[in-house]
């Protein structure tokens, strides 16, 4: 079946082949392979970029194909990151505490261990008690389940309420943004149970692999991100092809008409919204161990707006467009804001890219929207059509 599916969708095959080749090249030239042409920190940047591509294609499905301009998908991304971060932080702190307490002559009790871990984790917010939401943090399996369940359930409940009331268009965007903002504000509080604005840190240290150099860990996450992107791409290509794609594009263009054809539009929107939210959660769970830290600012509405900008610049309604947009904009962004971009001296004024990058991004967003509504991907299409 997949054979025929791939042959019927050559662009998917191209993306997968390119992704495979890219993964191979980066691995071969990485420090883990002993070459070191690609530094470990750059491998992490690339791995993170792959995760951003994954959430970008999710955004493209929900917005470009189904017409729901969600400004909340980075919230799901952040929740995925927090969910995996809780386990990473707990397990690592547990190992450190166990080591330091093992020096005691009298073996520590369970309560003592738990208090010590709590002190380590929640000391920064002046607490040592484990909040209820940390109940599963000791178990990787349960916490991985949370990566899928919490974004999925939140999207399901939120989407059910919003779509059932027939909230559409810009009003829905505002509603999703409000959800994101509410979540970010909650996370900023010290008593949220997730360390307030300190967020979760030290996530690059994987419990059980303390001795493994970051060079190898970064490559492992890079591969995982690459595999997740490949699977996500095939999943979404499958969903948006065929009749499902036809129905959701029809909903984007005229949902009332689709209702009169006998389709329950709300169920379709809910399906797309929830599926993409779960994928966003997975992307976040892969992203933050590579970033090393997650804090509430990551969940702020601006991140979700960036996401929409990537997809618009790359090309809405085409999965590879979203990939192009995410790669292009996020790599440029890290180039310009990383301080390595040379300042431009105009004589009377020095253009510092760290300040002017957002202006450049804003201008290119306007330019793309006005001049190439199909985004960068539409340029590709023109080239292939001519040849």
């Amino acid at each position, binding site marked *: 079946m997949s054979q025929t599916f791939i042959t019927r969708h050559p662009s998917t095959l191209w993306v997968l082949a390119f992704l495979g080749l890219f993964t191979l090249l980066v691995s071969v030239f990485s420090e883990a392979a002993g070459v070191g042409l690609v530094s470990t920190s750059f491998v992490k940047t690339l791995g993170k970029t792959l995760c951003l591509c994954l959430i970008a294609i999710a955004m493209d499905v929900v917005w470009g194909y189904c017409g729901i301009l969600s400004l909340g998908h980075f919230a799901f991304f952040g929740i995925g990151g927090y969910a995996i971060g809780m386990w990473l932080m707990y397990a690592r702190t547990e190992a450190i505490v166990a080591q330091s307490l093992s020096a005691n002559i009298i073996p520590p009790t369970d309560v003592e261990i738990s208090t010590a871990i709590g002190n380590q984790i929640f000391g920064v917010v002046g607490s040592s008690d484990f909040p209820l939401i940390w109940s599963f943090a000791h178990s990787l399996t349960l916490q991985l389940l949370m990566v899928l369940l919490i974004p999925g359930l939140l999207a399901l409940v939120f989407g059910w309420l919003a779509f059932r009331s027939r909230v559409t268009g810009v009003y829905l965007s505002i509603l999703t943004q409000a959800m994101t903002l509410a979540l970010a504000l909650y996370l900023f509080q010290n008593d949220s149970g997730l360390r307030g604005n300190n967020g979760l840190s030290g996530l690059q240290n994987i419990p059980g692999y303390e001795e493994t150099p970051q060079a190898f860990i970064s490559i492992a996450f890079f591969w995982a991100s690459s595999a997740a992107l490949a699977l996500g791409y095939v999943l979404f290509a499958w*969903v948006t092809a*065929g*009749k*499902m794609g*036809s*129905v959701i*594009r*029809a909903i984007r*263009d*005229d949902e*009332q*008409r*689709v*209702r*009169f*054809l*006998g*389709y*329950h*539009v709300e*169920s*379709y929107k809910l*399906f797309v919204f929830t599926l993409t939210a779960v994928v966003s959660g997975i992307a976040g769970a892969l992203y933050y161990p590579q970033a090393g830290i997650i804090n509430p600012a990551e969940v702020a509405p601006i991140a979700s707006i960036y996401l929409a900008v990537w997809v618009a610049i790359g090309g809405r309604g085409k999965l590879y467009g979203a990939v192009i947009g995410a790669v292009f904009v996020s790599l440029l962004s890290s180039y310009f804001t990383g301080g390595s971009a040379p300042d431009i001296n105009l004589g009377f004024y020095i253009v510092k890219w760290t300040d002017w990058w957002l202006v450049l991004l804003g201008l290119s967003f306007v330019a793309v929207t006005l001049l190439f509504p199909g985004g960068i991907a539409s340029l590709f299409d023109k080239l292939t059509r001519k040849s």
Partner: protein
Amino acid sequence: MSTLLEMSGVSVSFDGFKAINNLSFQIAEPEMRAIIGPNGAGKTTFMDIITGKTKPDEGRVIFGEKSISLLGMSESKIAKVGVGRKFQKPTVFEAQTVRENFALALKNPRGPFDVLRHRKTKNGAQRIEELAERVGLIDELPRLSGELSHGQKQWLEIGMLLAQSPRLLLVDEPAAGMTPAEREKTTDILVNAAKTHAVVVVEHDMEFVRRLNCKVTVLNEGSVLAEGTLDHVTQNPEVIDVYLGR
């Protein structure tokens, strides 16, 4: 011939304006019925009520042998029960091909997971070709429906309506903006459909209604003014007053 749809005592008002006022209406299966009336007579609201877009303030809408009430059902559920609607302005999915448009309308399970598992079948393809033949779009199947002419879009929409296999077809101004030749063909398609279905046609154009050769219901100010053959109703002084007196 048995009654398929029965509306009785239906009223609906928008901000105090009575769009439909104590309206009663029946249609059998198969039957062709034309609805005429001046602007603002409530023709579109009448369709909105049947298809579930507008909820009436009072009255009953009963459908089928089992006399199920359409009130309180969602638009999609009403469509699944067997009511299809063609809009005044042709609304086809312009970014998709004619074939895809037909496939969307084709009678198949409508749930998201049914659609996800959907496989194209020989049967379905055959049915699409049959319908396309019937509405004269067989050569246009691979084209984007946005590229079709106005008349072709109207036919595509009628074809999609037939693809749904509804029992009751509500057709709003099918001949608007068509050339005489196109009108004739549209008449044929509708008359043919009325041999097996209940068809309600809303139309302004008397010539078109005459060609349909069916019972006519005249709406005015939200209720039925007259009912009968076209000759009968056009001789009714009240009808003449409403149409010509203003």
